[in-house]
């Protein structure tokens, strides 16, 4: 290579570099232009909306949030500032602010979404595994449940669950009383609760700690046999606690209109939960079934030749692999389930969207209200998707299925 050649190459390199720089500048300019255009357009849109609203005499302001609500909400807790500005949850009442009413709606939506996520995962996995069962009845039952539920609109299912099932529970006066004070009535499903009366007595404290430890063991102990022992231990400790008077059971007592004592699920919540859980579970079941089908058949054969029973194969070989794969699609299902809870309005469940309807009507600030509602759903969906992402990272540390 001669000197001339190198200088020629250097010249070429120089021109390449300057071309790259030009390209980069042009690129940046285009990007900047697009951003500026978007900002200008958004600004003009906001201006047009504001001017349009002003022309119609509609005020755009969030100050209505501080006004007194003046209406009641059938169920749900809201945040209030307790002693020393520590927020605590309290039942919503009509003298609270409109912002509190929104918080009640968010609480109800989050409550039902969380319960539905847990229940639909369990039910969906069972249905999905059931579809591959060797038992003809179980396999076909699961197939028809999934097919029927997946192919009918959720709103219609919800109305069915509410008006055709839940509202046909017996009235409070003749409410069915089941095992130890469970009341199933039109006014709600009441279950007994436990409350602490042991004070600081040593025996009670020891027993509650033992119950807690065995309950944790029952959930997290990796060995199935040990988990069973833990369940037994927890039940025995709790029984002793109640027997020694460390805790008392609050049984619900039926009154004229409703029951007092214990805790309850309202009919509206029960119907919405049933509808959302069953419908999401059928979608989850399909995901699970698909993931199981995708596993090599050799896995089953290998487990069989090792002498594992079918149940052990599913629990210890198949499902652990399936959950690694299906988690991202579960995440999608969780998000759509959360958004589906907005159908609660059809049965009078006071979820966020339902409460927004009342607020918009009583105050007239529907635009501001819908912005709050959309932002709340966005945040809820973000929380779910980031939790699923986090769980996925934990389950797949090596980057499997990412």
């Amino acid at each position, binding site marked *: 290579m001669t000197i001339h050649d190198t200088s020629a190459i250097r010249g070429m390199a120089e021109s390449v570099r300057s071309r790259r720089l030009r390209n980069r500048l042009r690129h940046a300019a285009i990007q900047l232009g697009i951003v500026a*255009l978007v900002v200008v357009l958004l600004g003009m*849109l906001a201006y047009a909306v504001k001017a349009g609203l002003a022309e119609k005499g509609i005020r755009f302001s969030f100050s209505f949030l501080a006004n007194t609500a003046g209406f009641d909400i059938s169920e749900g807790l809201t945040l209030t500032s307790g002693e020393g500005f520590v927020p605590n949850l309290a039942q919503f009442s*009509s003298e609270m602010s409109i912002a509190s009413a929104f918080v009640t709606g968010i609480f109800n939506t989050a409550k039902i979404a969380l319960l539905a996520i847990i229940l639909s995962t369990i039910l969906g996995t069972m249905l999905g595994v059931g579809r591959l069962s060797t038992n003809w009845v179980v396999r076909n039952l699961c197939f028809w449940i999934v097919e029927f539920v997946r192919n009918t609109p959720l709103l219609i299912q919800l109305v069915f669950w509410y008006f055709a099932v839940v509202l046909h529970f017996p009235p409070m006066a003749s409410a069915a009383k089941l095992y130890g004070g469970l009341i199933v009535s039109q006014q709600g499903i009441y279950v007994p609760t436990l409350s602490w009366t042991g004070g600081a007595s040593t025996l009670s404290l020891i027993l509650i700690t033992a119950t807690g430890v065995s309950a944790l063991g029952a959930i997290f102990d990796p060995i199935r046999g040990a988990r069973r022992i833990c369940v037994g231990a927890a039940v025995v400790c709790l029984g002793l606690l109640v027997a020694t008077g460390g805790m008392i059971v609050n049984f619900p007592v039926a009154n004229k209109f409703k029951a007092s004592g214990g805790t309850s699920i309202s009919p509206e919540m029960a119907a919405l939960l049933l509808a959302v859980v069953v419908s999401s579970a059928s979608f989850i079941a399909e995901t699970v079934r698909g993931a199981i089908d995708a596993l090599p058949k050799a896995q089953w054969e290998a487990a069989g030749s090792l002498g594992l029973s079918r149940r052990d194969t599913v629990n210890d070989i198949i499902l652990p692999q399936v959950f690694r794969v299906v988690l991202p699609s579960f995440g999608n299902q969780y998000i759509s389930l959360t958004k589906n809870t907005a159908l609660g309005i059809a049965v009078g469940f006071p979820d966020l969207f339902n409460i927004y309807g009342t607020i918009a009507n009583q105050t007239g600030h529907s635009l501001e209200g819908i912005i709050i509602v959309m932002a709340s759903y966005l945040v809820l969906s973000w929380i779910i998707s980031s939790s699923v992402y986090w769980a996925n990272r934990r389950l797949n540390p090596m980057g499997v299925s990412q």
Partner: protein
Amino acid sequence: MKLLKILTAGVFAGVAFTAANASASVLDTVKQRGVLNCGTDNTAPGFGYLNTTTGQIEGLDVDFCKAVAAGVLGDAAKVKFITVTDKSRFDAVLTGQVDVVFAHTTIKPARESSIAIDFLPINFYDGTGLMVKTDAGIKKFADLDGATICTTQGSATETVLAAAFKARGWKDSKVLTYENLEKLFSALNSGRCNAMSTDKSALAAWAGNAPKPADYLILSDTLDKSPFGGFVAANDSKWRNALRWIEYGLFQAEESEITQANLAEKLKSEDPFIQKFLGSNGGGYGKDFGLSDDFMAQAIKAVGNYGEAYDRNLGPKTKMYLDRKGTPNALWTQGGAIYSPLWN
């Protein structure tokens, strides 16, 4: 850059369009369109209800829509009924989906102050009542301490109930809200709701139309008064005034004993007051409101006077069985509160 220019022009045109739109009166829009878009309910017997035997929508609110169409466009058939719910009715008028709403709407300050609407005069005086199943053994409102009381979402009853509970210090009573009266009524029937609360006229209608009206008991308590009126978008006095005077005209027609039946005869009347009121001799009041001279004659031809419209939809001969006698819904000359300003 060209794109930007086009977009900018588009947005400014949009702004200009909304501004121009806002300044034109709905009256002109309706006349240009040739059809009145009128918002009514279709689940409220007596006010706005789809009669399943005739397939027609009927009711007092429906008749007001027809009277407005006749008064403005000269033909009661030139009206398009658009169903609104308790929840959607305000947005329907604000967005221009409908020109006017007659949907048994309670007039109260919070609505006129924070929602950009203007109410028309009261066309029915009602009160918030409660209905229970007869076999529930509930006789008065005080028996309902701790009960679940249901109502429709977006109704004035929601706040009336909250205030009633608060005044009595009832902690366990609950308000449950449904989308519409149909769901509300089935929830009462199923037993989910111990009482159904809404305006007394609607309660009478639902009990009256039920297979066995004796199964229901409307409590004598009235929780609060509930005056009904139609409403239009705010800041359009031309439109609002035209509608107000058509409504007052129906009151005045009853007072002046002009009916659907004797209208033809009254049009030939030599009485200068009647001539001016009906515009039969030219030079009525219509021109000043941007209407035709005979606008009241058209409205009366379509639905009759207020008393006729009332009796046809709500009176003792209907299932509603709401007698006007002794109520504010009677004409002022008979001790009621239906009163038209002076036509002179």
